[in-house]
């Protein structure tokens, strides 16, 4: 179980191999890689040249660890890894990695999706996009709030 906040790139193959090495109990590895993309979701907006991710050192790690602990409490995970990068990225650059290991696929899939949905709304990162006409801070999306909300436990 690990959380890493770093500027350096990561290699999903290397991380996955390292986590499964020597184990005989892993039946499923699910991975999600979030990548900086060029197209802008706003209608008619200019393509994204680059984006810069800023974060809140200290709180970021605490939040990611809390999100990971919640996933472990909800699913029988054998292991999991969250890597989130910060700094300046161009379209095509990987930004975030979530890996989940379990005995069976459904747990790995569900926990991986949960981790990403919660991370999007609970980890203190902010994106600034650069286009030909300048830089702008990305606004949060209601669809991300809805995705996180669907994992709320009935009270």
């Amino acid at each position: 179980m690990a959380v890493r906040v770093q500027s350096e790139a990561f290699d999903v193959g290397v991380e996955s191999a390292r986590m499964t090495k020597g184990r005989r109990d892993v039946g499923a590895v699910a991975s999600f890689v979030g990548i900086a993309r060029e197209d802008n979701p706003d209608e008619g907006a200019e393509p994204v040249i680059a984006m810069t991710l800023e974060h809140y050192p200290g709180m970021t790690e605490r939040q990611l660890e809390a999100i990971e602990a919640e996933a472990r409490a909800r699913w029988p995970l054998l292991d999991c890894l969250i890597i989130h990068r910060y700094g300046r990225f161009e379209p095509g650059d990987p930004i975030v990695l979530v890996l989940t290991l379990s005995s069976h696929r459904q747990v790995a899939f569900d926990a991986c999706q949960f981790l990403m949905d919660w991370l999007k709304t609970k980890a203190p990162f902010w994106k600034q996009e650069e286009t030909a006409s300048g830089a702008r801070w990305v606004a949060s999306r209601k669809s991300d709030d809805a995705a996180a909300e669907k994992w709320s436990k009935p009270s």
Partner: protein
Amino acid sequence: MKILYFAWLRTEIGLAEESASPPASIKTAGALIDWLAALSPGHAAAFEKRDSIRVAIDQEFAELDSCLSGASEVAFFPPVTGG
């Protein structure tokens, strides 16, 4: 008390962090916003968009009516957009 700003709050105020000593009458994060807004025109402009501002007290998400009691670090930022 250490005050931190992120994303457009940081760029509009022109500071990533500052040290502040609000009077004892400032008891909530919202009251702290009103007090900080009076520090400079940049602060006033940034804090005007109150509905778009989120707060963390000692690195935990909080609400604008959350109590500051004993807080050593308060951060202001827009809704998060990572992932």
